[in-house]
């Protein structure tokens, strides 16, 4: 049941009970494991437009966080017989263990078109309640995503954690974790960054205390505008240390630079959006997952637009050169999605790494 009263029927392939959440669709055809464990999806009911989900099971190491983050999973057909040499468990078993509802059988394309036309909506799923009035009430009782702070609780991290670089250390980076995807750390560390991960709620002094070479702002769930404290905590760091943000981190950087953010109708969730890098004209096919964006018209002097979405023209990247701060809305760590944008990590690590001593 959606908040507008439309009803879609399916049956459970994992778990039972009731759950509410904002329903978002992702058009990525692979990567359900990464998606449902991506903390940015926390609290959301994830609808996969690709109809067969579960084909290759769950593969150890491909998760983005320890837990299933999505509130529920909607698919056209769940594949019970998973087949991949690397998989150890089925999607249903994982969802069951996490107590997350998995529903199959509804007309997922009709549901997708509904959300596309009317915007992301709150939904309520129940394996017990059949009364439509009750269902609709429950869907509407769920808090709207607008103004919702999910990031403060988005991270499992309670205290700073040091993660050494893979191989030789080139730099030390503080990463603020608002609900980070594990693969972002892998990208940073594999390029020689030792990462000091801190909870997104870290105070400005804490952030700068360790004199990092760079500051990284992670992705995370919810409305960035609800995170005033986190934004305030960033401001003192700007100009002190190079800053690179992804997704929510990009929105927070934007807010810290006095840009505005807004809620998009149904956001971007998928692995096929073209984004133009305005600095060199190249097009990247990107991994996307966000329901909020930075408003282009709000970019103040000193903040440049660096990346633009070619589907709808929205802001995909900004840069404040004077402050050595930049960020992208999309996910250069992919997972799931194309790996066209790894250069952003290269650029960040290169620019914060002390020059290698020659000879």
């Amino acid at each position, binding site marked *: 049941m959606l908040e507008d009263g439309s009803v*879609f029927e399916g049956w459970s392939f994992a778990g039972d009970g009731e759950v509410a959440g904002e329903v978002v*669709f992702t*058009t*990525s*055809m*692979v*990567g359900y*494991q*990464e998606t449902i464990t991506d903390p940015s999806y926390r609290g959301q009911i994830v609808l996969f*437009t*690709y*109809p*067969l989900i579960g*084909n*290759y099971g769950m*593969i150890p190491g*491909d998760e983005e966080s320890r837990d299933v983050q999505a509130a529920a999973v909607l698919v*056209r*057909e769940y*594949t*019970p*017989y*998973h*087949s*991949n*040499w*690397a*998989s150890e468990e089925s999607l249903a078993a994982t969802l069951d263990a996490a107590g997350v509802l998995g529903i199959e059988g*509804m*007309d*997922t*394309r*009709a549901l*997708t*078109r509904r959300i*596309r*036309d009317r915007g992301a909506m709150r939904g309520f799923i129940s394996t017990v309640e059949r009364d439509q009035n009750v269902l609709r009430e429950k869907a509407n009782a769920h808090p709207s995503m607008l103004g919702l702070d999910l990031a403060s609780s988005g991270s499992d991290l309670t205290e700073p954690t040091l993660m050494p670089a893979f191989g030789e250390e080139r730099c030390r980076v503080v990463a603020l974790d608002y609900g980070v995807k594990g693969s972002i750390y892998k990208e940073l560390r594999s390029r020689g960054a030792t990462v000091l991960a801190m909870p997104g709620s870290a105070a400005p002094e804490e952030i700068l205390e360790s004199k990092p070479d760079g500051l990284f702002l992670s992705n995370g769930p919810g409305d960035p505008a609800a995170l005033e404290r986190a934004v305030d905590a960033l401001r003192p760091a700007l100009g002190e240390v190079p800053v690179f943000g992804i997704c929510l981190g990009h929105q927070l950087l934007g807010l810290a630079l006095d840009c505005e953010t807004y809620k998009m109708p149904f956001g971007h969730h*998928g*692995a*096929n*959006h*073209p984004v*133009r890098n305005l600095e060199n*004209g*190249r*097009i990247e*096919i990107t991994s996307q997952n966000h329901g909020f964006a930075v408003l282009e018209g709000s970019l103040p002097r000193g903040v440049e637009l660096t990346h633009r979405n*070619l*589907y709808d023209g929205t802001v995909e990247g900004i840069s404040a050169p004077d402050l050595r701060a930049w960020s992208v809305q999309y996910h250069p760590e*992919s*997972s*799931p*999605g*194309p*790996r*066209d944008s790894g250069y952003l990590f290269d650029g960040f690590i290169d620019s914060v790494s002390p020059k290698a001593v020659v000879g």
Partner: protein
Amino acid sequence: MPRRDDIEKILIIGSGPIVIGQAAEFDYSGTQACRALRDEGYRVVLVNSNPATIMTDPEVADVTYVEPLTVEAVAEVLRKERPDALLPTLGGQTALNLSIELHEAGVLDELGIELLGASIDSIHKAEDRQLFHDAMTEIGLKVPPSRTVKSFAGAEELAGRIGYPLIIRPSFTLGGKGGATANDHAELRRAVSDGLDASPVGSVLVEKSVAGWKEFELEVMRDLDDNVVVICSIENVDPMGVHTGDSITVAPAQTLSDRQYQTLRSASLRIIREIGVSTGGSNIQFAVDPRSDDFYVIEMNPRVSRSSALASKATGFPIAKIAAKLAVGYSLDEIPNDITRATPASFEPALDYVVTKIPRFAFEKFPGASPRLTSRMHSVGEVMAIGRTFTESLSKAMASLEVDPQDVKAGLDEPGPYRVFAIFDALRSGLDIREIHHRTSIDPFFIASIARIVAAEGAISIPLDAEELWELKRIGLTDETVAAASGTSTEVVRGVRRALGVSPTYKSVDTCAGEFPAQTPYYYSTYEDEDEVVRGENPSVVVLGSGPNRIGQGVEFDYACVHASYALKDAGYDSVMVNSNPETVSTDYDASTRLYFEPLTAEHVLEVIRREKPHGVILQFGGQSPLKLARELEREGVPILGTSPDAIDLAEDRSRFGRLLEDLGIPHPRFGTATTPTEARAVAEDLGYPVVVRPSYVLGGRRMEIVYSGEDLDLYLRTGAAASPTHPTLVDKFMEDYVEVDVDAVCDGDEVFVGGIMEHVEEAGVHSGDSSCVTPPITLHRALVERIEDYTRRLALAVGVVGLMNVQFIVRGDEIMVIECNPRASRTVPFISKATGVPLAKLATRVSVGEKLRDIQPHSSTNGHFSVKAPVFPFDRFADVDPLLGPEMRSTGEAMGIDRTFGGAFAKALIAAGQTLPVSGRVYISVSNRDKRSVVLIARAFADLGFEISASEGTAEVLRSNGLAVVVVPKIGESGDDVLSLIEEGGVDLIVNTPWGRGARTDGYLIRRRALMHGVPCITTLAGSAAAVQGIEARIRGGTRRVNSLQGLYAARA
């Protein structure tokens, strides 16, 4: 970057006649490219020798040459037209190879013609195995260990190092021609020898076999700004070892995790950049270890391909069209996505459905050929189906195949045609998924999905309630399957389904999984809640397509369907296409007002009709596939436009048709129908041998044979063609030494327009699809032609034809008889339309929707030119098959030659069909006794043209006594220098060999087979030889160097 203004005129090369490995997909891509470039304001010159293509319609390019795809002819076109650029990547391997040859011959440099899309260097880098392997190693990707060798010794050395099994692939061939697997020393010797012969550059690649690994393909596009996108991933259900053209394939990939898929995607990007395909599409194949993350790069095609056509249909992203625009300078983001209109082409399509392709085979046409699938392609066509789940998609694809269960003899352990049926059977008989996986190496995901279908079949209980039926339909079970599993009839299931309100909804293919609004008129059925068809108010007419290409029902029928669709749009109707063949122009989403990608079964067609509520349905263009639905559609009250089902039956039912001919006083050979073997024998004896026997209602002469004796007849009836009351056998008196004549005509019910008369080159007895023919006729005098026209008119009116009709006559002296009348589009419609400039299929469509010929006033003329159609055969792909012509059709396609002289036109057609026609050298002649008299004149003509004559002993004797100088060649096996070794040593340039004695392994068979393997032209009929003489003469006089554009010919006529 915007479009280039420094070029104005662009030449596109087509792919020539349909052969295995290169079929209608290149008509689809070439047509798109021509249109796209003309839309951009370029002048487009096209060369293609295949008349049965939309691309060679005079409206598609600015200037169209139906000429052989040889350096000689195309260089002449280039000299005449002086284009600025040549786009070589849209006409398959043929166009690519020809472009390289033109470059190597210096023609491109001489005329200052730029190659668009791919440079010579990048083509070499992708096509030359060694260069490709080096390039892959350079960018850190693995290829199977291998080595290019020019002799057996090198192969042996490699085998010693890395062991068996090995794969042998010849360089520069299409469809894996000449490729084979070797498991031991003996097989290696044979495979290397065959491969060296097949390769135009005499080298083969020997490599480690990764048979059993999973196979994936990615369709990649790149623009001049170096933006790269992956349009589609395709997973082969059949693992490595089976040519991808022979594999069941599924899009998108099903069994790769994101990490595994992205690894292949990133590799593809690196590959297209390294190879340096500057613009356009490429197909990259990978082998992936099912037990680890290991993978190998197998190959890359730096051009559009069969897979890119499939990917275009599977995603809605028109790869060829975009490739053409990229070639003239646009970048991906400058080109709008046609389907969403609001978003650019620089993206990767997202699918929310599953696409399954199943190849269509024709092994039944080639008895003796081993039906084992290898790395060499054998399929002649394919079907595609779209479903929301794999089970639904697979079931629909299987329903689309239209295979005769009798022709499916698949086993589980060998990769044979239609093995998927064996998997169903195995599961039904209780084999488990693991066991089947071990025996087939097919990924358990697919087997488990099939198990789900089998389980659903097994669980059917009667009576069916709505919910149960809904579930069965969602899994993908057809009414037919449900009926079979529940012991009732399809009609009953359909009735129950209707009564319970269980009917499909139609979803659209929109490239973006619903993320953006799209008004794509491209639909597929599924059983869900929401229907997306935008129907509008305009009356619609449904055109039923021709389904998978197969021998006997090929691209000619698709051509007619496309014309019907165009004509309907012109006449103000919404044209609605239903078809299941992904290779074709008809399944391009903008060929019709709406496209339903559906199986051509009564169930799926009736549902489309229910949804469309059309003004009418046209069946007469798609060949036998739609025709066999005629009665059922009529029973359901569907308005059928054009010739009525009863009129079709009148023409096809032998006894009704016989009575009609007698009433009209039109002569015909005597015939009979038998419903038992005894009866068949009685009929044959009554008619007198030889007789032609065949099952009723067939296309392409399936199981049609000429039998000369009672023993032959018994053999025929024993080997699977037993006469029965439901499948009667037709027995016709065989008329020897007659000339066959084909006529295509259009009738509006009142008047008849004779579109063209074609005289066959070979004698009657060779299937009309396998015979060369010429129009206008060359040996029929005016009075005969007039009588043929008169018979045609009277027949059309008497049968009640509204639309197209094809009549076959046999002629000897002044005698004319009708042997067959088909009230539908024939194979020759595109050929005759090109030859005369009158698009017959469009004309037939217009009269079908009520227009009258007297208002249209068609006027056809060949403008003093002869047009010859020559068939192309796939014998070289089927080892051990006798390449003899007979009443069962075996050609896959045809080429056309046009010239002022018959000889010139014949030579061009033959050359275009891939035959060489030597202008000097040695002719070897060996004919049956009955032909010995007539061969004398032919031999003399060869001698007059300067050929040295050699012959078998018997033939030589006759020729000598007629005063010809002849070298006698010893019989096979008699000495070391017999005719077989002569062929091998290149001591023969042309062979005339007519058959005597039936059965395998005769000397004639050995000669024909050996000639085929060594590319020596071998003519098996006297009439064909006489025509060849004229062709050679024309070649010597330079007739094949004249090139004519269709537009020029038509203009000269007007």
